[in-house]
């Protein structure tokens, strides 16, 4: 009789694995959103020298619970002029791709919904499907701010999808597989991918911030410009599903991708002896990145929409293309060792970071010259 993982019959193990994975996914999405909103508020408060929620429950832990309960019991407004079914369906369309992505996230050695051999492709595809729900929400609301927010979001997400996928390609080139499990397996030991490919990690992380609508790229919900962006007309739990569950679920998915691709996923001390320890390592790593995203949110102001787009098309995409060229050439030239790739990638990181001030200065010079030229007639008239 064949023996599966943990010494369980594979026939029983297969459905059991599915149940465990779905249970973990739902648990992490629903409770994760509660926990992350609390963390977000608390951490922002600490960074801003405040106390944050602390009167509701011990240390304010029940704050998001109260929020959720309130949102559920709130009236669900649907204006007469909205586009009936689409308005109702949009939250589901935003939520479902996010939940479906959890199928391929490897929580531990054998705790994964399914080991798709195109796991990474599946994840990126689902990631871009969220845009559909957002645009539908913006359109169906019949509200000009919602529509503008939705279209902005479409432009932003589609643009940032490109550097994101280009960054993922270089990892796939080095590892040689699209399966999340294989990618994790290839990073056994201390040599995780981020040491070999730091440059695509940098690009991916920046693009992922934009992909999940996090500050400094949270233009679709920019409060000072568009009331609440594509969410303007939504109230109650419909809004809660869209914003809280989907946004924080997406953040978790993105952080899980980063963890799996660059930081060794569930690999960590002691996972060979106790495979379940992988869940702990995976969760810890994912939450570390979530905390970094919150830190960024509390630190940086919002970009302008043209800066956002030009940063993507003139900065990130060329950089990602150069990265692919370099990694592919070196992978062909030195098929046995990864050291040249690592050196080249670190050099690219240094060049990218050091190049930003130069580019910035040139841009400022051009802008100033343009301003001077347009002001010239007025200056002449005065003098």
């Amino acid at each position, binding site marked *: 009789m064949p023996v599966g993982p943990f010494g369980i019959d594979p026939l029983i193990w297969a459905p059991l694995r599915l149940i465990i994975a779905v249970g973990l996914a739902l648990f992490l999405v629903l409770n994760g959103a509660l926990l992350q909103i609390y963390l977000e*508020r608390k951490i922002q*408060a600490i960074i*801003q*020298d*405040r*106390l*944050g*929620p*602390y*009167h*509701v429950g011990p240390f*304010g832990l*029940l*704050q998001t*619970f*109260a*929020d*959720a*309960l*309130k949102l559920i*019991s*709130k*009236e*669900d*407004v649907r204006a007469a002029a909205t586009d009936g079914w689409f308005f109702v369906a949009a939250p589901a369309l935003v939520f479902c791709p996010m939940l479906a992505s959890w199928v391929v996230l490897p929580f531990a050695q054998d705790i994964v919904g399914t080991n798709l051999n195109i796991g990474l492709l599946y994840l990126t595809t689902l990631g871009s499907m969220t845009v559909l729900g957002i645009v539908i929400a913006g359109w169906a609301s019949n509200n000009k701010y919602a529509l503008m927010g939705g279209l902005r979001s479409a432009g932003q997400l589609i643009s940032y999808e490109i550097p994101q996928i280009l960054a993922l390609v270089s990892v796939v080139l080095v590892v040689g597989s699209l399966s999340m499990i294989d990618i994790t397996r290839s990073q056994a030991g201390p040599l995780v991918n981020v040491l070999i490919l730091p440059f695509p990690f940098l690009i991916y992380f920046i693009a992922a911030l934009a992909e999940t609508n996090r500050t400094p790229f949270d233009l679709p919900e920019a*409060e000072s410009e568009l*009331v*609440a962006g594509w*969410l*303007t*007309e*939504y*109230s*109650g739990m419909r*809004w809660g599903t869209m914003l809280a569950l989907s946004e924080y679920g997406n953040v978790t998915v993105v952080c899980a991708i980063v963890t799996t691709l660059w930081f060794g996923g569930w690999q960590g001390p002691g996972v060979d002896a106790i495979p379940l320890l992988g869940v702990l390592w995976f969760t810890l790593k994912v939450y570390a990145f979530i905390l970094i995203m919150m830190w960024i949110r509390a630190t940086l102001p919002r970009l302008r929409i043209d800066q956002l787009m030009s940063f993507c098309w003139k900065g990130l995409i060329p950089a990602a293309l150069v990265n692919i060229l370099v990694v592919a050439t070196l992978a062909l030239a030195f098929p046995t060792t990864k050291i040249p790739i690592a050196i080249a990638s670190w050099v690219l990181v240094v060049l990218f970071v050091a190049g930003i001030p130069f580019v910035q200065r040139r841009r400022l010079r051009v802008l100033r010259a343009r301003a001077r030229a347009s002001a010239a007639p007025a200056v002449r008239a005065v003098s």
Partner: protein
Amino acid sequence: MGDSDATPAQAKKLNRLNTMAIDEKPRARPIDFEEDVIQRRPVTTQAGMGTADVTAPTPGVLANDDNIVFTTVNNLVNWARSRSPWPLGYGLACCAIEMMAASMSHHDTARFGMEVFRSSPRQADVMIVAGTVTHKMAPRLRRLYEQMPEPKWVIAMGNCASSGGEFWDSYSTLQGVDTIVPVDVYVPGCPPRPEALIEGLLRLREKIMKGG
């Protein structure tokens, strides 16, 4: 002032009353919620989870204010609503500055879960009318109030929003926001300090807790 015909003791007492700090003064009667706030509430369109007497905490172990393990649905929902009233940032004039200050690090309404200022009325619970309401703004205010989903509350912050304040009898100013929307809590002052606003929010919290 007629100080001349007062006895020295009386004069001393008067003098002390005039110079003592505001919080040393003898307290007025403490606010009785049932009588002062709930009974005097203007007619509103609100659909709360029930009237005050239905949801009043039952004496005994099972349903009291702080017990959320064994409770009635009404009490649980009222607890949740009272613990996360998200304000609609409706800053109209000088009072808005104090409203902002109330959510900043020094006063930090986030402690009570009230820092989530929503810019869309669809997601807000409490409308804090902070400032002077002109006749031109009044229809917008009423409209935003109607766009908020039930249950909803209104705080009139400052003298202007409460009664017209220093624009009393002005040709262009609304004489109190309660002429167009039902107000739950009045926060007097010109401008009220952030502490006063927080006090108002906490009073509102107690009121919501009682089913208002």
